[in-house]
C-alpha cells in the first residue's frame, strides 16, 4: 500500500476519490506564429468560439454560486468574451500571431491597463489573467485551471490553494484537501480549518496520484494512503460518527479539575459573529476589522465602520469582544495605507505601524469602535497588531483613552514584544498572542512557503518559550493582566492543552474548533497540562514536541483529532 506523509493541519479521517487540480497554464512562446495550415480568419473564429465556451462555463458556474463568489463569476464570465480583449487579440492574429499567443498578449495589456488604474481595478487584473488561462486551456484542449467542477464528491489534490480559490471551493463536494506545497499557516490550511475540511499540506509526491484513485486521508496524523485497508475504512466511519458530537460545544471551556478556560471565537464580521455565537463561543477573542476595509479604494466612513462593528457587538451581549485595529500590509495590502513596492512587506509598514505613515486612520477607527460600543451590551476591548515596543504600547493606550475606550491591549506577535512583556503590560491591560506571525518572525520563515513548513509551526520549542516568557512578563508585572492566544495554535486541541499549561488564560479560534478543543480540555487537569507544557518545552524539535505531547493524550486518537 502506497502512502504519503505531510503536515496535518485540519483533523478528520475520510475516504474518497482523488481529483487533481489542473496545473497552471504555461505561457505560449513569444513570437509563436499561426500554423501554416491555418488562416487568420479561421484562427479568429476558433478564438471567439473558445472565448464563448469559457464564458458559458463561467456563467453556468455562477448560477450555483452564492454571495461574493457569484458576482465575481458573473463579472469574469463577461470578461471572457469581452470585445476589448478579443479585438486586441484578433488584431495580433491578423499580423500572423497564433491565437494562444494573441490572447495572451491582449490580456496582458488589458491587465496592465487595469493595474495602472489602481485600487479596485488593479484587483480585477487578476480576473483578466484567470480568464486568459482558461481561454488558452480551451484552445489547447486541456482542463481549465482551478478547482475542477464536479457533482461527485472528491478529495482535492493541488500544489497549493490561493485565496481566490476559496470562492469556487464548494465544501459540499470537496471532502478533503491535500497539497504538495504550502505550510501549516498557508491559505490552504486556513481555508480548510474555516470550512472544517480535513487537510494535509506539504505532502511531497501526492501530485503523482492518478485521478479517481481511492485514498484515505488523516488530517490529524498528516497521512494519505492509497487503496485504504479495512482498519482505515473503519476509522473513517468512526470519524463520521464522532464528527457529529465534536460539532457541539456546551458553551463553557472547563478542565477536568474545574479550572475555567474561556473559549472565544475569531471572527471577521457580523455574519461570522452570529455563527460563532450560535456555536457557543464565550465571546470574541479576535475581531479582524479588515473586513470593513478590504476591496476599498479609500477609508470607510465613520458611520460605515460604526454599523459594521455594532453588528458584531450585538451578537455578544454581556460578553467580551476584543477588537483588533486595522492590520493592513504584508499579505493584506490596502491601496490607501500600504506601499506595495516595499522589498520586504512582512518586515515593513504593517499593522500598528501604518499609523506612522498614515496618521489619522487609526484614530478615526478607535472613535468608530467607541461609538459602536455605546449602547451595546458587549464588553469591548481593543488591541493593536504588530506592537514591538513598550513605547508603542503606551502610545496606543493613550489613543484608546482619548477615544474613551477603557480596555487597551496589544497583540504579541513580534518576538521583541514577548521578550519585553513585563514593561509592555505596564502600559496596557492585556496581551493576546498571535501565534501565526509570532512563529513566522521567531523562525524567520515566510508563512506561505512550502519548503519552510517544518519551521513554520507553533510547536517549535522556541515559539513555546516566547509564549512562556509573555506569561512570565504578566506575572512579573503583578496585576494579573490576562494573556490570551488568538492564533491558529489555539485551534489545535493538543497545543491548546500545552498553551493552558504555559499559563495562557483564554483561547480564541475559528468557531468550528471550539467543540473539539473543549472536548480535550475537559479530560485534562491544569497540573497535567503544566506537565505536558514542560515536555513540549524540553523537546529537541517541533516534531518531537508534538509527538511526545500527543502520546500523553490518548483522547486525541479516540476522537480522531
Amino acid at each position, binding site marked *: 500500500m502506497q502512502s504519503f506523509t505531510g503536515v496535518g493541519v485540519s483533523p478528520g479521517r475520510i475516504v474518497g476519490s482523488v481529483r487533481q487540480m489542473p496545473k497552471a497554464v504555461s505561457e505560449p512562446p513569444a513570437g509563436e506564429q499561426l500554423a501554416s495550415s491555418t488562416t487568420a480568419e479561421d484562427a479568429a473564429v476558433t478564438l471567439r468560439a473558445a472565448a464563448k465556451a469559457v464564458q458559458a462555463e463561467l456563467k453556468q458556474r455562477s448560477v450555483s454560486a452564492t454571495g461574493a463568489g457569484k*458576482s465575481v463569476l*458573473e*463579472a469574469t464570465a*463577461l*470578461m471572457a468574451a*469581452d*470585445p*476589448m*480583449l478579443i479585438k486586441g487579440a484578433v488584431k495580433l492574429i491578423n499580423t500572423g500571431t497564433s491565437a494562444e499567443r494573441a490572447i495572451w498578449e491582449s490580456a496582458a495589456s*488589458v491587465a496592465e*491597463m*487595469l493595474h495602472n*488604474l489602481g485600487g*479596485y*481595478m488593479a484587483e*480585477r487584473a487578476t480576473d*483578466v489573467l484567470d480568464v486568459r488561462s482558461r481561454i488558452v486551456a480551451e484552445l489547447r484542449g486541456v482542463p481549465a485551471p482551478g478547482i475542477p467542477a464536479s457533482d461527485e464528491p472528491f478529495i482535492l489534490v493541488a500544489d497549493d490553494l490561493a485565496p481566490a480559490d476559496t470562492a469556487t471551493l464548494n465544501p459540499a463536494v470537496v471532502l478533503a484537501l491535500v497539497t504538495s506545497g504550502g505550510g501549516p499557516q498557508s491559505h490552504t490550511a486556513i481555508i480548510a480549518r474555516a470550512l472544517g475540511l480535513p487537510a494535509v499540506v506539504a505532502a511531497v509526491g501526492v501530485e503523482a496520484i492518478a485521478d479517481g484513485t481511492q485514498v484515505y486521508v488523516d488530517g490529524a496524523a498528516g497521512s494519505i494512503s492509497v487503496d485504504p485497508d479495512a482498519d482505515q475504512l473503519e476509522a473513517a466511519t468512526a470519524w463520521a460518527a464522532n464528527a457529529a458530537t465534536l460539532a457541539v460545544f456546551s458553551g463553557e471551556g472547563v478542565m477536568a479539575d474545574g479550572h475555567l478556560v474561556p473559549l472565544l471565537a475569531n471572527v471577521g464580521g457580523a455574519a461570522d459573529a452570529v455563527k460563532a455565537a450560535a456555536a457557543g463561543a464565550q465571546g470574541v477573542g479576535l475581531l479582524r476589522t479588515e473586513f470593513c476595509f478590504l476591496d476599498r479604494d479609500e477609508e470607510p466612513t465613520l458611520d460605515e465602520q460604526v454599523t459594521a462593528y455594532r453588528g458584531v457587538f450585538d451578537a455578544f451581549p454581556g460578553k467580551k469582544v476584543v477588537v483588533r485595529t486595522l492590520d493592513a500590509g504584508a499579505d493584506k495590502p490596502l491601496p490607501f495605507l500600504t506601499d506595495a513596492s516595499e522589498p520586504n512587506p512582512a518586515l515593513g509598514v504593517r499593522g500598528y505601524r501604518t499609523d506612522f505613515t498614515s496618521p489619522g486612520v487609526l484614530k478615526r477607527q478607535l472613535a468608530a469602535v467607541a461609538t459602536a460600543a455605546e449602547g451595546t451590551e458587549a464588553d469591548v476591548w481593543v488591541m493593536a497588531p504588530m506592537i514591538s515596543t513598550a513605547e508603542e504600547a503606551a502610545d496606543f493606550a493613550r489613543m484608546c483613552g482619548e477615544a474613551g475606550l477603557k480596555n487597551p491591549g496589544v497583540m504579541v506577535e513580534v518576538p521583541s514584544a514577548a521578550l519585553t512583556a513585563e514593561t509592555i503590560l505596564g502600559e496596557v491591560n492585556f496581551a493576546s498572542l498571535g501565534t501565526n506571525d509570532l512563529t513566522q518572525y521567531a523562525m524567520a520563515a515566510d508563512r506561505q512557503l512550502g519548503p519552510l513548513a517544518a519551521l513554520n509551526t507553533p510547536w517549535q520549542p522556541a515559539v513555546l518559550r516566547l509564549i512562556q516568557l509573555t506569561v512570565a512578563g504578566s506575572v512579573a508585572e503583578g496585576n494579573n493582566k490576562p494573556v490570551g492566544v488568538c492564533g491558529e495554535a489555539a485551534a489545535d486541541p493538543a497545543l491548546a492543552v500545552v498553551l493552558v499549561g504555559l499559563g495562557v488564560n483564554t483561547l480564541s479560534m475559528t468557531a468550528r474548533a471550539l467543540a473539539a478543543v473543549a472536548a480535550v480540555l475537559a479530560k485534562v487537569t491544569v497540573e497535567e497540562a503544566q506537565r505536558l507544557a514542560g515536555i513540549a518545552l524540553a523537546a529537541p524539535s517541533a516534531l518531537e514536541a508534538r509527538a511526545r505531547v500527543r502520546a500523553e493524550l490518548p483522547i486525541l486518537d479516540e476522537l480522531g483529532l
Partner: protein
Amino acid sequence: MSERTATIASRVGLHARPAAIFAEAVGALPIEVTIALEGDPADDAMDASSILSLMSLGAANGQVVVLRAEGDGADEALEGLVKILETDLDAE
C-alpha cells in the same frame, strides 16, 4: 447619430456589478453603442458592450457620460440604456 447623456446613479460608480449589468444590456442590442465621459472627444468613445472598457472609463457616482449609437431604433435603445445608468444598481 443619436446621442444621450446620463448621470451615473450607482454608488460604486460604473464598475463591478453595475458595469456588468450595463455591458450585458448593450451586448444584447443589435446596434453598436459607444460611451464617453461628458466633454471627452467623440473619437475617444469606447465600446459600451465591453465591461473592460467600462471599467477603464472609471465613471464615478454623479459623473455624466455620453452614449452614442447609429441605425434603426437607436433612440429607443439609448433611452433604455440611460434608465439603467440612472438607477442605483448596487441597491438591488
